[in-house]
Each structure stands twice: as structure tokens, then as C-alpha cells.
């Protein structure tokens, strides 16, 4: 007679050759090993009678039957081994059979009554693999993250307060619609677009380009199909985004510091700075 480990290997090979998924094959092989172990301890019971092999379940019974075979068979195996009763003779396919089986043993009743099995839960094949996933290294938010956040918050608040004490927000004279300041500039975050107006038709610089940028930003996750997050694997995306950011930064800086009266080019160290935040 084959040892339990041999049975395991044998069933595993059979299942694999049948084309079962690795999780299912493993579960069935483990169940067979448990049966073999029990059979070795209790030779009076033939292997077949203690638990029908789960592989005999029709495939139609679905993933629930296949994958739950392992835990059910294992939990049912213990009472059967100690009390030498066919307590585990119910179909090992149902995950709920472990507890009732033990109760039947405790009652000391000689025969196991016929039972209607209920399906309590459907365990998908992937669920087994999820349990085997490596646990992440995690830390408590309090105090580790929240302390860092508090420090960042205080640093920014402190720096902003000091800056506000030293530099006053601009307030020029009352608005006068008859007197256009020269140059008149948009707020700094639109100066990149205003700079583009020097090179393109207003409809291109003021409408088309911003629209394209916004749509490209919205679509970025769907355009970039590369699943990796490692910088080495996504050089193209990084170069494209950096190019886009740098272009706009340069345009904005030119608009801020290098544009004088008439929005003409001027070096800030020669003509002065025509820019207010």
C-alpha cells in the first residue's frame, strides 16, 4: 500500500495531467493524503468508505465543491481517527460538515444519521491563493504617519506665517477701465498659456492647447497601459510627462520674468521685473 506522501504525489500528478488548476489539484491531493493517513491508522476501514474522493463530484457542482474539499476533509479526519467511527463519511465537499461530525461523535451514536447538507458559503478557487499572499509590512497610522503629518503641517504653517509677516499681498490703485496697465498679465498659473499666445493663433493657444492638455490628463491612465510602477520600466511615460511639465514651467517663467511692456521680451536684469503675484 502506498504511503500518504506517495498518494499525494500520485493524485497531484493525475490532477495536473487532467488539466485541473494548481489550487484544485493541490486540494485534491491533500485530501487524498489525509484519507491515506487515516486509512493507515485504521486499517479496518477501507479507504473508499471513509470519504468518497472529491474528484467524483460532478464538475457541475462548481468551485465550491472542489476547493472546500481540503479543509473539510482535514477537520473531519480527526474525530474519525480517534473514535474509529465513519463520522467523516459524509461528502467532504461541503465546508460545513466539520462541526456536525464532531457532535455526532460526542453523542456516541453508533450510526451517523442521514443529513441534508446545506451550502453555507461558496469559496472561489482564487480565495485559497489570496490567503497565501505575503502579508504587507504595515505600521500604525497613529503615531507614525500622523506625527509626520503634524510636523509637515506646522512647518508649512510656520513658513507661510513668516512669509506673510514679511511680504504683503499686492494692492494696486483702484481699478480703472480707461487705463490699461502695460504689460497686463494673467495670474501666474495662466502665464504659460498667455506666453503661447505669442506663438499661436488665439484659438490654438487659448482653446485648443488647453483642451488637449486637459483631455490628455484625463486619459493618461487609459493611454498608459504599462502595469509597472518601476521607473526603469516606464522611461517613455516619465520622459513625456517631464517634457510636458518642463515646457510649461519654462513658458510660465518666461511669461513671469522675461516679458516687459507690450509683452515684449526683456531680460529681468536689464529691464526690470514686470510681474506681481
Amino acid at each position: 500500500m502506498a504511503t500518504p506522501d506517495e498518494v499525494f504525489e500520485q493524485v497531484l500528478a493525475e490532477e495536473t495531467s487532467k488539466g485541473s488548476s494548481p489550487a484544485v489539484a493541490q486540494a485534491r491531493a491533500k485530501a487524498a493524503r489525509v484519507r491515506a493517513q487515516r486509512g493507515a491508522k485504521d486499517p479496518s476501514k477501507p479507504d473508499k468508505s471513509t470519504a468518497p474522493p472529491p474528484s467524483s463530484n460532478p464538475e457541475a457542482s462548481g468551485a465550491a465543491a472542489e476547493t472546500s474539499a481540503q479543509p473539510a476533509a482535514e477537520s473531519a479526519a480527526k474525530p474519525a481517527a480517534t473514535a474509529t467511527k465513519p463520522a467523516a463519511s459524509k461528502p467532504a465537499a461541503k465546508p460545513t460538515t466539520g462541526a456536525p461530525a464532531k457532535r455526532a461523535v460526542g453523542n456516541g451514536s453508533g450510526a451517523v444519521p442521514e443529513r441534508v447538507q446545506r451550502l453555507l458559503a461558496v469559496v472561489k478557487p482564487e480565495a485559497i491563493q489570496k490567503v497565501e499572499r505575503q502579508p504587507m509590512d504595515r505600521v500604525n497610522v497613529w503615531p507614525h504617519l500622523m506625527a509626520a503629518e503634524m510636523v509637515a503641517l506646522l512647518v508649512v504653517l510656520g513658513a507661510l506665517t513668516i512669509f506673510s509677516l514679511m511680504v504683503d499681498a499686492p494692492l494696486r490703485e483702484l481699478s480703472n477701465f480707461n487705463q490699461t496697465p502695460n504689460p497686463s498679465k494673467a495670474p501666474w498659473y495662466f502665464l504659460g498659456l498667455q506666453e503661447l499666445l505669442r506663438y499661436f493663433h488665439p484659438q490654438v493657444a487659448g482653446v485648443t492647447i488647453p483642451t488637449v492638455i486637459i483631455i490628455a490628463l484625463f486619459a493618461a491612465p487609459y493611454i498608459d497601459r504599462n502595469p509597472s510602477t518601476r521607473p526603469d520600466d516606464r522611461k517613455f511615460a516619465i520622459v513625456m510627462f517631464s517634457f510636458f511639465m518642463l515646457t510649461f514651467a519654462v513658458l510660465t517663467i518666461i511669461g513671469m520674468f522675461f516679458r516687459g511692456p507690450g509683452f515684449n521680451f526683456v531680460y529681468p536684469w536689464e529691464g526690470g521685473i514686470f510681474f506681481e503675484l
Partner: protein
Amino acid sequence: MAKASGWNPRQKLAERVDQLHNGQLWRSIFRPGSIFRRGYADSPRNRAYVVMNSLLYHLHPVKVKRHGIKLSYTLCLGGLSFFLFILLTITGIYLMFFYRPAVEIVYEDMQRLHTQVSFGLLVRNLHRWGAHLMVISVFLHMARVFYTGAYKPPREFNWIVGVILLLLTLLLAFTGYLLPWDQLAVWAVTVGTEMMKQSPVVGDQVQFALLGGPVIGPETLLRWYTLHVLFLPFIIVIFISIHFWRVRKDGGISGPL
């Protein structure tokens, strides 16, 4: 002898405080994990309670991936954007006490804010510099998310919400820019809205709706004031909520790289 068992104010006070802390009122207000509750000790359970039992802190999960708390990963940019939004709300409410959006008096109000209102200038400075800083930090937050690839599945939709938040931030900054009603504000907004007029088909209508007329005028001020203090903050709070909620639902912080 009489003195020892007699009236001891310090001990009496300690007893009263103890009674208060153990009383029903106190315990009903401060949930477990609050630092005001008696008997906070550093234990895993209490560390979890601090986060779970606080309305503000429970935006966070109880635990995060270890790499996520590294400063070099997020640079705190998202959190700082949110903090600046709160700061701008608070300083903005203070400014609203002294500001009337009518062209005849608005500039007077601005001058009074600078010269007569307690801390008026400081609060205005905080509001203005904080606003510029928020635009920068939202931009940089977007860049960080891109460079760490945090917009990839399952976080695609949250990236979209983030882009909407960026646009809302720009709109908030732009509408606020007009409110001082000085030469700088009015002409900057003129330049900005001239661009909108260029939109095909609906350009003129969009500009008319935003300005409340063909050119900037009293209606514009009232319109942009309402947008700035009520409408846009209302919208952005909704999107901020979705943004934070999706961060949690999409599996917390992204990465590691």
C-alpha cells in the same frame, strides 16, 4: 490629627476631576482613544482607537504600508494641499466679515482691511500666499502621483477626480484673483477671460455668462464672489471627499516602487 484628616483642597480637586473623568457625561463625549479620556496607554488597541474613533483621523486607515510613511515617497503633498484648503477656508471666512462685493465700496473695504481691521493684512497675506502655495502643491502632487505610477489600475478613476480637483483649484484661485478689484486684479482677469472668448461657437456666450455682461463690471464682481466663496468650495469639497474615499477603496497608498 485634625489637620491630616481635614480639608485638603488639592486632594479634593483631584477627586472631583477623577469623578468627572469617570462620569457618564465625560465618557459619553470622549470615545476610547481620545487623549482626554482617562487611562490612555500606548497599546496596539489604543493606537487603533485613536484613528477609528475620531471623525477627522478616521479618514486614515488604522495601518498603512510602511513605505507609504516615507517622506520621500509622497512628500506630504496631498495632505498639505488639503491643509492649505482648510487654512484658506478659515482665513477666507475671516476676510468675508470685512468684504462687501459691490464696486462702489469694495476697494474701500480692501483699504480698511489693510489699515483698520485687526490682523486684516496678515490674514489677507496668509490667504493670498496660501492660495498660490496650494496651486503649486496641487501641481506637484499631480507630478508625484505620475512619477510613482500611482494612477495605474485600480486608481485610474481617482486620477480623474484629481485632475478635476486641479481644475477646481485653478478656478478658485482665478475667481479669487478678481476680488481685490484693483488694477492688477481686473486686468489679469481681463486677459484670462479674453482667452475664453476664443472658444468656438459658444465662446461669446461663455464669456457673457461668466462676466455677467460683455465686459467686466459690477455683475462680474458679485458673480465671481459667489463662485469663489460658495459655489466652487461646495463643489470642491464633494470632489475632495470622493478623492479621499477612493484612496481608501482602491487599496490605500500605492506602491512600493
